[in-house]
């Protein structure tokens, strides 16, 4: 397959950035999107040009490193896919593909398609944990957890922290990401002691980082590679309200 690629190039945070157009030829339909970019990069290196920088690592949809807007959609048009899960056979031969980094103020571009997502880490540092000391945990089976809650907590915990929810949201809201963690820990008995403090601290940090508000657009759920449900945002709102009321 052959493709024309329009890729966002930006040398560093200060650079203004622009689209550049490239051609790639003879791509196997079985190749992954990132492998197609590898091929492009090989080509660029041979031509003495700077290869396109992008984050990636596991290439199997779990580490959350990869992430780009492909034809305007976070992680491309496929459902429940991270960018590394996208295969070239999902495009048509000869297609022009536009590739951009996540666009959100709290995620400044570092280079080309790489953005700085450390705002997510700072939200986690503010409260996304249970403060248990190493060595002080009771026997694991002394805390039974109702299976339904455990399953729902696991659904929320599946978030890979990729940032597609923010990139897809017209307000650059991080509500789905924050909700996933708050929901997971609120559902578990272990999470109860810090429940109120946690949600307040995480929300405060989220606002401080400049993420926008949720206006029930639901683009986040549609683009989330792990299918995290917006239902968790509803729980987050409830948690936040109750925490503030008491």
């Amino acid at each position, binding site marked *: 397959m052959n493709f024309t690629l329009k890729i966002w190039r930006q*040398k*560093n945070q200060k650079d203004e950035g622009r689209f550049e157009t490239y051609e790639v030829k003879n791509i*196997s*339909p*079985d*190749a992954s999107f*990132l*492998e197609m970019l*590898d091929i492009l*990069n*090989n080509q660029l*290196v*041979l031509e*003495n040009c*700077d*290869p396109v920088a992008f*984050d990636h*690592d*596991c*290439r199997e949809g*779990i*580490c*959350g*490193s990869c992430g780009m807007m492909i034809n305007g959609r976070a992680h491309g048009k496929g459902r429940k896919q991270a960018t590394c*899960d996208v*295969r070239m056979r999902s495009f048509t031969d000869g297609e022009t593909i536009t590739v951009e980094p996540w666009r959100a103020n709290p995620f400044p571009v570092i*280079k080309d398609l790489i953005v*700085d*997502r450390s705002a*997510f*880490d*700072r939200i*986690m*540092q*503010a409260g*996304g*944990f*249970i403060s*248990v*000391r*190493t*060595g002080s*945990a*009771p*026997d*694991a*089976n002394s*805390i*039974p957890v109702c*299976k339904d809650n*455990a399953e729902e907590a*696991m659904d929320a*915990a*599946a978030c890979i*922290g990729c940032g597609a929810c923010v990139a897809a949201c017209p307000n650059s809201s991080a509500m789905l990401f924050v909700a996933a963690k708050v929901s*997971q*820990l609120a559902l*578990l008995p*272990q*999470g109860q002691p810090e429940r109120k403090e946690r949600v307040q601290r995480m929300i405060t940090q989220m606002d401080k980082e400049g993420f926008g508000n949720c206006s029930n657009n639901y683009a986040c759920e549609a683009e989330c590679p792990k299918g995290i449900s917006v239902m968790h945002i509803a729980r987050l709102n409830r948690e936040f309200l109750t925490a503030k009321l008491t």
Partner: protein
Amino acid sequence: MKLDPKIPEGPIEKKWSSHRFNMKLVNPANRRKYSVIVIGTGLAGASAAASLAELGYKVISISYHESPRRAHSIAAQGGINAPKNYANDGDSVYRLFYDTLKGGDYRAREANVYRLAEVSGNIIDQCVAQGVPFGRDYAGYLDMRSFGGAQVSRTFYARGQTGQQLLLGAYSTLSRHIGAGTVKFFDRREMLELVVADGIARGVICRNLRTGAIESYVADAVVLATGGYGNTFYLSTMAKASNATAIWRAYKKGAFFANPCFTQIHPTCIPVSGDYQSKLTLMSESLRNDGRIWVPKKPGDLRIPSQIPEEERDYYLERLYPSFGNLVPRDVASRRAKEICDKGLGVGKTSMAVYLDFADAIKRNGKNWIEEKYGNLFDMYHEITAEDPYANPMRIYPAVHYTMGGLWVDYNLMSTIPGLFVIGEANFSDHGANRLGASALMQGLADGYFILPYTLSDYFGRTKFSSLATNHPEFVKANKRISEETEKLLAIKGKQPVNEIHKKLGKVMWDFAGMGRNEKGLKKALKLIPEIKKEFWSDAKVTGDSDNLNIELEKAGRIADFIELAELLAFDALHRKESCGGHFREEYQTPEGEALRDDKKFAYAAAWEYIGDGKNPKLNKEQLTFEYVKPAVRSYK
């Protein structure tokens, strides 16, 4: 140098507790005077950094990733072992100890393996308390699986994402400390050099991958939790960025490298489909419970599988191992698949694959049953290959998956350089010549949560530290050396992208030092690797400059180290004239084609000492003694 594993006296079940009692303690008020650098934030590094901060030490955590949560541990699927005996099926610390030692084909240190089994129960407690959503039964208690041939159910799991959930648990604790300022985290920093001053490890030199700046970090001790070196083979199930630079640079500074040839090849991975392939995807081992492995009897049989009649198929594992059949251990299944494909009987476009067929299971139990059990794996296979595994058999082929070898450490997890500790997959300690499923996660967390915090405290308590800063001559020297090396890489200005050279290296390693090794092949590898090294340093093309984010430069440095490590790996494989676990030397096999160990000559860990470029490394042996579990032949007939 005489290797002293520092195994405590006394009966095996008392060693760890009496050792802890004899350790020097550091008074809580004094702890903030000690500092430690932890490289890596996988299960081992994140758990260690958080636990050390909790004790009150000053912790510097460093990773080449943008966030601690991206570490390769995140990709582990199956589960984590612990002898909780919640299933009431006869599990015990002793049984896990026994299984691990035997599974490692008697090439691990008894005392370490026992301690691992002993502390592993606490890991599950710790993780549950952190909010890790393990699988549960309807009563709300923890559910277990059996895994990797064990006869008991001791594997705890969080769907197919156990590594992710355990890592996020450790990451959350680490985050709490970063937020509180008790751990300082430096992202996108690659450690390129270990700094040894007055004979002890005192810091590291890193490249800031964002800005290109070469930075110095000083502390009283250094911990490497930098993972395995499977990407030496180019294609593996490891994450793309996983590399050996940290342990390799430490090796060149005097840390011994033990058993580099002990590498694990996993039998069920999606085969290579073309030249462009950048990594391999693991399909869970559990598939072998219901899938039957076969190839057509006739070479080059291009008929679609369903049209090949029963009598024209060779179910070779069932034929060779009537009692274990498709469930033989990883190393055996992998080796047999390679043999079959080498004979030209492989299937698929590349002929480098065998069928894993579910037709019988579907006929027996129905499609729904299979879907419920393996649905996500079938979907993943479908997505990657565009083939429907319900209609046609899967094609699978073995892939490099894990490295048992690593830096040599004593019972305290300290390397041969005082003050340099090595934990997780990066050390050689607990798995011998073969790792059992669900035991790597266990080891990483055992090291980080429950072992290193004690042994490092003891080291602090026993050691006098001179105060020193980045203007110390050793730091200045190391800093300069790394800057020069970076410029050297950029100055090669050859014609080949570094990735292409890495692929060549991978091919040599896979062909001659992969699943089946022999003297002739290994000698050939030892001739080819130096040629690749020459090619790299004369013809590699590294674009860009050193004071920016430069992905080609990052790769180039890592590949340069892989090439050197590859040579040591082949050298070790050549010297070990026996077959054991993941190391199969074709000359040493039983008439039935099974691995033939030589306990008289090779019951030791081979700890290689670097004595200079271009010189053969020096072999140091740690003799292994088995007081509790007597080595026996593994048979699966």
